């Protein structure tokens, strides 16, 4: 159905310039004359898209000069003094800072290949791009200052003068996310071959995911639709509809407004929105007690344990550093029984690397202080320190569950800690269960007395991203709490209070009734308790 706009790893199909406004302006002109198949505004309108004219802002030399000063101060570090995206640390960022000289912008309301509107750039500068190092400038700069920056940014590319976008999609007509709309959206997801890149469940792990590159020939990965907090252009249904309608210039993400009508894309937006979930960032992983801990990652018994999402950062504290970790969060659950503790670790990994493909194997480590420490004290969060060792449980796609004792990242030795593991991989996601006895069998092994706050941290390696050794994603210390069952003595006080209060009420009411009865027989005056006689 949808034409495969994405390119596989290959040199750019066109010349030095991307298909920016200049080429596209020509194409549209030629297309309008010769090729009735190419869409114009009236074709979009016929398919139910609301199209309107753009309203370009007039900007003055003074405004651009003010914008230039702000740009040099705030933006040039990443985007370069010349706007070419070659700032001081451009090579350490992924995605790289935008090159403004080429006029290729990802997030727009204009037709694919065209320049964005002034308002589009204003919005991105204001709100930033989630999942990248582009921050939201709203609150730091005033609206007036952002407009000044926008006018200066546009001056990097002559296309804004020569081929400004004249039409834009108005993003009106949203459809309610009814079950019918979601079912229809799922159909469109299948027929438009979204799964080819984004995967059957939306984790960005489709069959083509390994081969995608952007306009600049840098490797690029399909968005993980299940993590809406990482979507560059925002994750509301309106944002998704805009991305589906106009595509993402410079990337393999095409515009679907040529092949589909507005209703289809609203349904698809609703469906994609339904694939995502809200993250639950937490400080404490609470593990309830059950009869017997599950050994399988897909056991429904895990539903009894609340899930906590953990943020990860690149290990940029010791050399060799990792500035762009591919796993940026993981989800954790914990359960325990009389004998054992079990942890369920879930993280997105688009490609399975088991060590047999010239890449390092995918791995995850769970870290605990190896010795009981004074409350509030912990080993150094990067695998411990000289005095305070860390008991680390590792699961590797190559060799399964292992245990190590470490005194820092440079001093790691295998340990006898009897950790068992079981994993599943599917749809771009690892699910790993790690189990061990609650009590330590040997020296320098962590213990889990229920009710204790045990420090816990994680390290994750993605083999596809060549992560190995110190190059890994790391977390800080969190707490793991195995929740003891409530003792029956806890209930004594509340029950005692209920009995006393109820008894007091009964006695008081009885005395009152006796009093009322005596008053009635003595024929007392009614005005003392006026309403009761009514």
């Amino acid at each position: 159905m949808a034409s495969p706009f994405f390119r596989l790893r290959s040199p750019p199909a066109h010349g030095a310039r991307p298909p920016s406004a200049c080429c596209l302006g020509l194409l549209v002109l030629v297309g309008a004359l010769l090729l009735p198949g190419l869409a114009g505004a009236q074709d979009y309108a016929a398919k139910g898209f609301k199209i309107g004219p753009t309203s370009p802002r007039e900007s003055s030399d003074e405004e651009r000069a003010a914008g230039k000063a702000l740009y040099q101060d705030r933006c040039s570090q990443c985007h370069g003094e010349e706007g070419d995206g070659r700032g001081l640390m451009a090579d350490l960022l992924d995605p790289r800072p935008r090159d403004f000289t080429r006029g290729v912008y990802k997030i727009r309301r204009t037709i694919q290949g065209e320049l964005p509107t002034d308002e589009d750039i204003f919005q991105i500068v204001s709100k930033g791009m989630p999942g990248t190092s582009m921050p939201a400038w709203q609150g730091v700069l005033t609206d007036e200052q952002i407009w000044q920056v926008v006018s200066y940014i546009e001056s990097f590319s002559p296309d804004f003068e020569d081929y400004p976008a004249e039409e834009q999609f108005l993003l009106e007509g949203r459809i309610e996310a009814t079950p019918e709309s979601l079912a229809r959206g799922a159909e469109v997801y299948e027929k438009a071959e979204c799964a080819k890149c984004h995967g059957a469940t939306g984790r960005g792990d489709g069959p083509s995911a390994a081969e995608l590159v952007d306009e600049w020939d840098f490797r690029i990965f399909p968005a993980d639709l299940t993590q809406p907090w990482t979507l560059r252009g925002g994750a509301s249904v309106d944002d998704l509809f805009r991305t589906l309608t106009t595509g993402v210039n410079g990337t393999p993400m095409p515009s679907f407004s040529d092949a589909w009508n507005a209703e289809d894309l609203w349904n698809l937006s609703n469906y994609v929105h339904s694939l995502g979930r809200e993250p639950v960032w937490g400080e404490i992983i609470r593990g309830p007690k059950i009869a017997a801990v599950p050994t399988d990652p897909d056991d429904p018994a895990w539903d009894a344990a609340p899930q906590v999402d953990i943020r990860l950062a690149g290990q940029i504290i010791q050399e060799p550093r990792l500035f762009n970790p591919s796993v940026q969060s993981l989800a954790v659950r914990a359960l325990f029984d009389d004998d054992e503790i079990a942890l369920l670790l879930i993280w997105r990994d688009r490609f399975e690397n088991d060590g047999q493909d010239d890449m390092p194997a995918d791995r995850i480590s769970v870290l605990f202080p190896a010795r009981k420490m004074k409350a509030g004290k912990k080993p150094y969060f990067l695998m411990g320190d000289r005095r305070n060792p860390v008991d680390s449980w590792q699961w590797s796609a190559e060799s399964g569950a292992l245990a190590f004792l470490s005194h820092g990242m440079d001093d790691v030795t295998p340990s006898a800690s009897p950790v068992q593991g079981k994993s599943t991989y599917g749809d771009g996601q690892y699910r790993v269960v790690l189990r061990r006895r609650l009590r330590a069998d040997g020296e320098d092994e962590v213990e889990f007395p229920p009710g204790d706050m045990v420090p816990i941290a994680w390290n994750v390696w993605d083999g596809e991203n060549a992560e190995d050794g110190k190059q890994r994603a790391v977390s800080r210390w969190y707490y793991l709490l195995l929740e003891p069952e409530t003792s029956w003595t806890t209930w004594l006080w509340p029950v005692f209070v209920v009995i006393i209060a109820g008894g007091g009420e009964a006695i008081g009411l009885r005395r009152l009734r006796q009093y009322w009865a005596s008053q009635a027989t003595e024929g007392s005056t009614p005005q003392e308790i006026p309403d009761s006689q009514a």
Partner: protein
Amino acid sequence: MRRLTLPLSILIWVAVWAALRLGVQPPIPGSVMNLYLSILTISIAVFLVADQDRFDAFLAPLVSLLREPGLAIPRIGVLVAIPLLLGWFTYSGVRPQFDPPFEARTIHPEPPASFKLHGKAFDVLKGRRPAGMEVNEANLAAGKAVYYRNCMYCHGDDLDGKGHFANAFNPLPANFRDGGTISQLEETYVYWRVATGGPGLPQGATPWNSSMPVWQDFLSDEEIWQVVAYIYDASGSTPRVSEEH
């Protein structure tokens, strides 16, 4: 009006409580709030009992609730609800609670008199910017490059502590634009903090949590002086200067 004595009393109590609770900034401390509410309750009670008719009117709805044959269902409801509510309050007071241990953290710990940097001792109290490391355009430009290739991932490209890795760490990276951070400190102190990082912190500052790298492992003495100059300049702060006596 007399028939509304009870509801009005309750309404006045709730209105004063809401005004104190929501209308006063900063919030009133709990013990003071309890004091105010006690005075309020006593005032209303004194007003009610000062006049027999008024007190009877206040009690009338309560008496009828307990006495009227037609109000049996609300009566039973209230009589059952009160002990259960008290029981629930008791339960929330005595049930086991699990809170993470309190971590007392000194934000700006006392620096050591001197520390080793690349093998040489540096005096934090008497040390000075070395010759050639003056705050000038060349050193600021060099410091900017050091900052953006090393620091911005956590401390943010606006120096506000909101870099894209910031949320993964605790304590959060320092916000240099905040008046409580580098502008409270002497330059040599910041130089010490950058050079020795989290592992160089004394015990009270929870060095096991800090993700600040030991920058002398990556940067030369000159680069550290340059980046210290840059973060003061770019965040619009000035280092604290100890007075000569």
